[in-house]
């Protein structure tokens, strides 16, 4: 019973917050999800093969996106879109890290991820991990991923959510973006977070 009461209170306040966001008082141009999801937390493998934690990116505005490198179309479009937004931000872009988390650790080695993310810019960081680590992180942000059957050449597809989650300098969840948001809107919102 206490659980239900607490949950109802949280729900009610969330709904109110949601309605406030919809009423247009917010300054954001992408979707505000402050408080809707837990703070950023993970243990993954970096581009150098070392273990990294979310805390290692404390002080930066973090953009979290799931994908895999053997995806020549949508993933580079999304990363290119973010790169275009960052280019318009000038010095503020230095305070942003795009965390590209590969959910295909079988093919995406740290070395390949390094080459891949460097092609988009210095703010792009490739991360991956064990299936268990990836499941934990994707569950935390309610993102699904799955693998298609391999074809005769061993190539297979990876299905995954398209969400771009944005966390502030302290690691609190703030915004939900997607590929169809204009670069201007993305840059505007990231600048606001950098200068908070």
């Amino acid at each position, binding site marked *: 019973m206490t659980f239900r009461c607490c949950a109802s209170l949280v729900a009610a306040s969330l709904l109110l917050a949601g309605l406030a966001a919809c009423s247009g008082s917010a300054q954001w141009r992408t979707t505000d999800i402050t408080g809707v999801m837990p703070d950023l937390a993970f243990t993954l493998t970096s581009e150098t093969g070392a273990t990294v934690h979310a805390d290692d990116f404390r002080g930066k505005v973090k953009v979290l996106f799931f994908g895999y490198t053997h995806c*020549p179309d949508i993933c580079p479009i999304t990363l290119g879109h973010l790169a275009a937004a960052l280019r318009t931000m000038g010095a503020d872009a230095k305070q942003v890290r795009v965390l590209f988390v590969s959910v295909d650790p079988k093919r995406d080695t740290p070395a390949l991820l390094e080459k891949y993310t*460097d*092609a988009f810019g210095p703010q792009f960081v490739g991360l991956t991990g064990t299936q268990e680590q990836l499941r934990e992180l994707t569950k935390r942000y309610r993102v699904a991923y799955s693998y298609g059957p391999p074809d005769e050449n061993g190539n297979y*597809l990876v299905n995954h959510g398209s969400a771009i989650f944005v966390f502030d300098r302290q690691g609190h969840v703030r915004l939900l973006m997607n590929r169809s948001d204009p670069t201007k809107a993305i840059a505007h919102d990231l600048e606001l977070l950098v200068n908070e």
Partner: protein
Amino acid sequence: MPVFRHLLFKSLLLAGVALMFVPAVAATDTVPFSVSHAWIRWLPGNLPLAGYATLENDTSEARILVAASSPAFKRIEFHRSMEMHGMKGMDHMMGGMSHMKHLKSVTVPAHGTFRFGPGAYHLMMWRSGDIEVGDHVPVTFRFSNGMTMTVEFAVRGPAG
């Protein structure tokens, strides 16, 4: 007013004759089949690349593209990203219930256009050698009627 009427008749006749020739003139002016906006998105390492192009068919028959090849690529397939508003994966729904990895062919309708474009249909290309941003790579398209055409694809950076 017979003079006026005569003039009117003559000019109408002239206009009619001229109109009869217009389509023929127009048809000879345009290329019946063309490929434009051909480019490849470069990615590092040996990752497969996506190629894009716009195919315009101004003939009265649909053209079916059945294969693409290039000395720079081991294999080129026709793929479609499932756009599902971000959920990605290729289109498994093509041709009813079949689970296709890639499309066997694409059809450019008569007097129509087919576009390989970002986020939708694309050429999935496995490279056989080094390719740099700024290169121009020839790709040969083969159609079901035996027609082939070679197009230069410009290699652009990962962000397009």
